[in-house]
């Protein structure tokens, strides 16, 4: 059966693949989370299902809504709204999501990233050490300057 090439069309199969991937990711993360933090697996799994649900809705909105907005924005906004202190879902969402540590999610995520970026290695080597030095200054520059500005404004506004 040919795979539908139009990315705007949502097929049942495509959604099924997303759900399966999210399920696999949730299970691996919950195990990693248990190994690292000994959080009870059942509660963490509910937490991961909440996060996966938000992701699924974000992915669907990106494809179904007529706006040129990335799923990254939808996912962030839905997650924010569900956890707002005055929204009824807040207690439930924040309790279970807090059982999944960020570090567990990132660790599993970056294991996939490590395998996924392996094919870029040749490009990386071709660019050479000069590019590496500039990149290091690019990242350091934005990080240190942002932190300095934040610190100055935090002190000036009396927030810290």
């Amino acid at each position, binding site marked *: 059966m040919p795979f539908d090439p139009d990315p705007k069309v949502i097929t049942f199969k495509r959604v099924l693949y997303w759900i399966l991937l999210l399920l696999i990711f949730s299970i691996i993360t919950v195990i990693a989370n248990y190994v*690292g933090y000994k959080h009870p697996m059942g509660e963490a799994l509910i937490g991961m299902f909440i996060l996966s649900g*938000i992701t699924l809705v974000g992915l669907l909105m990106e494809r179904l809504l007529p706006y040129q907005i990335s799923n990254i924005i939808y996912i962030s906004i839905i997650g924010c709204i569900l956890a707002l202190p005055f929204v009824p879902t807040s207690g439930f969402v924040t309790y279970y999501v807090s059982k999944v540590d960020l570090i567990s999610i990132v660790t*599993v995520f970056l294991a996939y990233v490590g395998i996924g970026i392996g094919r*870029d290695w040749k490009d*990386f080597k071709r660019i050479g050490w000069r*590019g590496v030095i500039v990149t290091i200054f690019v990242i350091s520059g934005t990080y240190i300057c942002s932190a300095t*500005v934040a610190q100055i404004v935090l002190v000036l506004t009396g927030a810290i």
Partner: protein
Amino acid sequence: MRVISAKKDQPHEHAFREKTDKQIKKPWREYKLHITVLIISIISMSIGVQKIYLSKTVSIVLMPLLYAMIIGLILYLAKPIKFVGKKQSKMAEGAMLVFIGPLLAKLAVASGQSLYVLAQVGPALILQELGNLGTIFFALPIALLLGFKRESIGMTSSICREPNLGIIIDKYGFKSPEAKGVLAVFVIGTMIGTIYISFLASVCASVLPLHPYAFAMASGIGSASMNAAAISPLVYMYPNMANTLLAFAGFSNLLSFCFGIYASIFLGIPLTEYLYKHLEPIIGRNVPDVLSSISLSSKDTSTTESSEEKSLGDD
């Protein structure tokens, strides 16, 4: 505004979606990949966080996420096991775009939960976005001293993640030296950025006399994996502030996602052009091999395009 609308209509955006859709076809087929990732994750989490003291006060915090990424990369490159090959790498890459979701959702939940705290520090959160321009002052002189010419504008006007790629390619053209520059830093950033920023965050937190809140806000640079890698050492170092730190980091990253391209178009690129015009005659060098060292676009475009598309899933 023309720049932005043009960027949106770029065909590669949908081509990329289509490619991701193809890559995540039948995820159960690559069950060995998922088992491999599970084992990598268990090993990484068992090693846990390691704190290495460089001196009495300066320390580096090594996070499980670093081990996971490095083990994954080694598994692919050294090929000690047969079943992590090109096919699995493609699946992993396609899956990254889906898996970024729970990561972002986790940070978003922390932000929503801490709404009142976020409101208190609103000015700092917004103004620190301007700090992203710091990359120009730090990196442009270095790029010029190393002998880069127009490439340096692409390399240093922004953090060189996906939206910036679009802007530079749109403004200067795919074959331009500026586009070569932005692609070069993009590829290197994909490879070492996550690992480097995690080191940087842990060293800065122990060396610079700034509040953890300031570092948390700074970690939002418009790349989800770098964001998470930068905030993780801080969460480990200040566990009682964990949720607030996550909220600041996540929200600041969201701001970067939303407004980063505007800052780049209206401030970053003009500022880089201006500084280039004045600095290049003074400290510019003629290094013979520098152009061939970033020969990305001298390859056939399809390879470059695919390397660009490939890594889009990272963020």
